[in-house]
């Protein structure tokens, strides 16, 4: 059952390479929806999920092709299915569609691989494999600055990956196994836990990105085509959140505890830093990039706290952030089609495009975490966990939504208020349908956040057992 979520996009990727014309996009949308549907059905029926040991693929080392899912990965697979479907649906009129959708589905395959791997080497393979289609998508379909952005992204992520591989080999070769479950039973010496945690974290910090390893973010968001930006901010950053929660915390509990103060400091400072920088940007993509940096570092605060509340908050906030980023990127692209650039334009668009404005306001409210939207429950849980551990961290972290609100209000004011704009049509039904569907999901999560918690509890160990 678990293999299906990897196989569906893989099959689609192969199919897209065949001369099937415009069917490619339909297939890509379907593969996203189908993956999400399979996970939802499996979770609902309570089937699948357990680890499946296929065979040793590097027997002398002890590496296995072990896949399976738990609550967190099931939630992430759902999110990635939805966002990949949304991204594919938003990829209308793209040039060289067959290559594009083949790469797109390969990216989805690799992402699914990250979430289902139950073996460190397999995890690493998927974790790095996803860079290939991502870099090619950026390089081939990106905006003006795409070459430099791709190079920057590749250098930073590969640097992290190299250190991660070092860590994985150091751990697995010594232990003669790469299985998550077995390794979690090992109790390493404290010093090696710290060192290994640092090696692992270097990759995940680049990918989150954790401040100050965010130098790729703004460039990549600007250069990436809108669908790629959606999965970049919505899903790929969550692979790192997931990896920290699922690998670093259970494998190196004492190391992570020793590093916790520094990591928390970096994440809190980073969240505030990103929020402040977002207020300075005059390009919607860069605003989204920095606001996203702030939100992700806030999620990282929840994960680094490693308390049940912090982790549950991080999970809910991850899903919320994925949806909100997707909505914002779609709306930003819709905006750019009307203004002609990603700047704020002459303003006054509210009179011409009231629906666009209403959806934009909703998205910003979700980003800030106003109750009733999906942003609230995760953020509240994270802040509560932060206050329980350190009121100082909690106080700084609770400033983050305020500062994001400054940039959000600034964008709304500059774009939509003012004397009525001359041009600009409101959202068409196609643009509207996609965004409204995502917003509806976000609101459902905002009103019934326990659905996510229950989903996480339904499969695999409870979040609180992550760290004994």
């Amino acid at each position: 059952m678990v293999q299906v979520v990897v196989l569906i996009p893989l099959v689609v990727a192969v199919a897209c390479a065949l001369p099937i014309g415009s069917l490619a996009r339909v297939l890509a949308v379907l593969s996203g929806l189908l993956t999400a549907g399979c996970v939802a059905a499996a979770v609902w029926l309570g089937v699948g999920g357990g680890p499946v040991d296929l065979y040793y693929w590097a027997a002398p080392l002890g590496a296995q092709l072990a896949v399976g899912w738990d609550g967190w990965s099931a939630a992430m697979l759902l999110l990635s299915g939805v966002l990949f479907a949304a991204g594919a649906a938003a990829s209308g009129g793209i040039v060289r569609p067959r290559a594009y959708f083949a790469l797109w589905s390969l990216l989805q395959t690799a992402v699914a691989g990250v979430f289902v791997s139950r073996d460190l080497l397999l995890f690493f393979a998927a974790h790095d494999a996803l860079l290939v289609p991502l870099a090619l998508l950026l390089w081939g379909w990106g905006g003006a600055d795409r070459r430099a952005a791709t190079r920057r992204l590749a250098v930073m992520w590969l640097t992290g990956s190299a250190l991660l591989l070092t860590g994985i080999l150091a751990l697995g070769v010594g232990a003669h196994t790469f299985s998550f479950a077995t390794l979690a039973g090992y109790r390493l010496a404290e010093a090696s836990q710290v060192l290994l945690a640092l090696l692992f974290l270097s990759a995940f910090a680049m990918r989150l990105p954790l401040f100050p390893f965010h130098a790729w973010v703004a460039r990549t968001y600007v250069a990436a085509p809108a669908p790629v930006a959606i999965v970049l901010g919505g899903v790929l950053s969550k692979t790192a959140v997931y990896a920290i929660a699922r690998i670093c915390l259970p494998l190196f509990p004492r190391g992570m505890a020793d590093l916790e103060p520094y990591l928390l400091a970096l994440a809190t400072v980073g969240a505030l830093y990103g929020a402040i920088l977002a207020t300075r940007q005059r390009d919607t993509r860069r605003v989204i990039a920095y606001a996203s940096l702030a939100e992700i570092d806030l999620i990282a605060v929840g994960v680094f706290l490693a308390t049940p509340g912090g982790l549950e908050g991080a999970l809910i906030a991850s899903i919320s952030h994925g949806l909100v980023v997707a909505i914002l990127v779609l709306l930003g692209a819709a905006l750019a089609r009307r203004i002609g650039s990603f700047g704020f334009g002459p303003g006054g668009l509210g009179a011409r495009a009231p629906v666009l404005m209403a959806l934009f306001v909703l998205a910003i409210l979700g980003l800030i975490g106003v109750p009733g939207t999906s942003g609230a429950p995760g953020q509240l849980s994270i802040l509560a966990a932060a206050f329980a551990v350190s009121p100082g961290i909690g106080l700084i972290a609770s400033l983050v939504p305020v500062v994001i609100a400054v940039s959000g209000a600034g964008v709304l004011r500059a774009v939509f208020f003012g004397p009525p704009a001359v041009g600009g049509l409101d959202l068409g039904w196609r643009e509207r349908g996609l965004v409204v569907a995502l917003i509806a999901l976000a609101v459902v999560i905002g009103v019934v956040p326990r659905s996510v918690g229950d989903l996480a509890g339904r499969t695999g160990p409870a979040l609180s057992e992550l760290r004994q």
Partner: protein
Amino acid sequence: MTLALVVAVPLANAIAIALLGGRLGRRTLGIVTTVALVLSFGAGASMIATLRDRPTVDAFIATWLPLPGADLALTVDSAMLAVALALSGVSALIALYSIGYLARDRGLQRYFSALSLLVAGMLLVTLGANLLLVVAGWELAGAAAYLLVGHHREHTAAAAAASQLFVIDRIGDAALVAGTLLLVTEFHTVDLAQLSGVALEHGSTIGGAPVIASVLLLIGALAKSAQAPLHGWLPDATEATTPVSALLQTVAVTGGVVLLMRLRSVLVPDVLQAAAIIGGLTAFGAALVAVGERDVRRVLAWSTISQVGLMFVAAGLGALFAARFQLIAHAVVKAVLVLGAGSVRRATGDESDLARRGGIGWRMRWTAGAFGIGTLALIGIPPAAGFFGIAAIVSAAFSDGDALLTALVLLAVAASAFAGVRLFALMFAAPPAAVRATDAPRRLQDVSLVLLAFGALAFGAAVSAGLLPIGSGPADEAPVWLLGATFAVVLAPSIAAWLGYRHGLPAAARIERAMRWARGGLGLDALYARAVADPFRAVARELDEGAERANDRAVGGLGTLAHRASNVMGGVSRASARAEQAFLLAGAVVLLAFWTWSAR
């Protein structure tokens, strides 16, 4: 379940109108909203009898957040029921007024949806059983207020005011959330009843966390209720259309007072004392600004800030009856004044400068009459409602033995009486200027004005006669000489203002000149810009151009370095940057070092 309806009906109305309202006509939208608010009022009123028999009514709806006590549940006692009734009643009349006032407006779907949402949010603040629901209602009301102030999107000043409100609201929200979460870590529950119990048990004097939490909650209350130093958004928000101003100044602005009243036994005593003093200072300062302002709308906004300051004094001192009475009376009275001023402004071609408009006489009879009653009630001439509230607050401050606070309150009352009468005289009685009122049909507007004015007139008497069950307070036991002195303090400046401004005496012109300094909000607006906004922008610029660029350059440098290193190692293969090789090599070295080190 009746209790749930009080909040649910406006909320459902907001959602229904937002989703389906596109098909409804303008008038229908307004009528539906008014009916929904009246239903909410009726549901509340039907509980008056129930609450005679038992102290509270609770309604559990569902579980909500994974925190102790954070369920969807409501609770009400007779005191808070009175507040809720005032909120839903006044907002129903404001909605009724909007039907007429905004008859030619576009985007009424958005308007009425946001209006309903704001009322629902404030009712949640009043009735929510736990602090997180209060937070939720608070933020919903804030978001709705943002939409309402920005309703006329083409109006640049309103857009600026909306942005400012959004940000200050978020500051208040963040403080409120932080304070709430600190309380959770300390007391392990967000349920208000349990919190009060635990806090009473501990004497609420333990450790630093409750103090910090109390300070944060107070900051939240100050931001929501436009008290110094977070008051700037309210005068600016008067750029919004009239009914929105009225809603903000009667319903939305009471959030902080309601919070203080509900958290009375949770907050640390020193913080409550601070709330009273800040309220007193704000009340006096804002009344002075109201005397100096020339824009009708801003005079009323500053007067609101001043009156809410008096509520803070009462709530801080624990005179809950006085605070409640003042809150309800002020909601009714200020609705009359803001809506009345809006009608006049509309009729005189959107002129809001008092000096340039001059008195319009009795041309708008109903409006002028209602406005006159409102003014009497605001400044506190018995038997209109205001006097009872003012007397209760003065006697609370006096019996607390705080001379400074008593003096501040009396000064504020005097200045506010002067400002109130000045406004009425300049609007209706002063020598007329060039602008003349036009006759436009405004039946619905007048109906709501008259109903509100009747409320303003009768409310005080009804409470004194025990007809309305909101309790009784210190004013009943206050010495007669104190009441007399208060009355004198109200009467003297009122008469002075009437005589001065009705006939345009030179003394009045001198006062106008003398008070010009107060117009910029006593210079606080400029100070705020210099002390908060500018430094923030400077820090942001510094980070953007300093740290961010340095980081970018450093990573770029590393990339180039890796590129060069790989070129050196790869000999001729310049085409691809093999950063991974370089780092794999480095990693291998680290790995070897680690193995040798751990083998020892």
